């Protein structure tokens, strides 16, 4: 993930680190701070689909754009690209987006 995000133009001052525990402070201490984005990776399950559908049913399709948008969100249309989406969501928001170089492909998306 780290080499991919660097290839897309994110500065090498940032990298992806594994988080081994959310509760054990000595394991949490391994992660450099501040953390710009957290990526949760999990197998798609019926429960995920059920929770997603339930929560989404009352929401309208997002139509935001432009400078007033608080965060940059991409709808996933490419099959099996959720890792790429996670990566783009992480890199184009929060503390990370200032660390994208001027030229590379990531700026076209962000």
């Amino acid at each position, binding site marked *: 993930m780290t080499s991919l995000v660097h290839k897309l133009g994110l500065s090498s001052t940032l990298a992806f680190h594994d988080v081994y525990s959310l509760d054990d402070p000595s394991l949490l201490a391994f992660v*450099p701070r501040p953390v710009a984005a957290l990526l949760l990776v*999990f197998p798609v399950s019926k429960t995920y689909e059920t929770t997603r559908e339930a929560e989404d049913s009352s929401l309208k399709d997002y139509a935001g754009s432009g400078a007033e948008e608080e965060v940059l969100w991409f709808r996933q249309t*490419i099959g099996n690209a959720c890792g790429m989406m996670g990566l783009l969501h992480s890199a184009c928001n*929060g503390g990370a987006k200032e660390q994208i170089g001027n030229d590379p492909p990531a700026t076209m998306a962000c």
Partner: protein
Amino acid sequence: MPLEPEARSRLLENTPTIASAHEAAAAQGDTAALSATASVDLHFVAFVKSAQNNLWELDGRRKGPLKRGQLTEEDDVLSDKAVQLGVKAFLKREEEAGGGDLRFSLLALAPSFD
């Protein structure tokens, strides 16, 4: 960004550099890459903090970005409050919907070691 979500997705689909970088990365490692039409199990959800100090859950398969709560200036996404509002709340929802044991991993985008 000026483009609306539909147009953004089109832009991503049609940007060759992103596609080739993705393909190259997928080909690395020990697992054989699947075609885009094969059904795969893994999903990625991002948690980020906005300039307005809100915690957002970003999942390309949802209807839009989801605001999960308000953080302080000092919080980053791994702070206690952010973890409670973000990842832990997510896991709790899964469990309540009958999910039980969710095998998950967590990656943090943070300063590199070198």
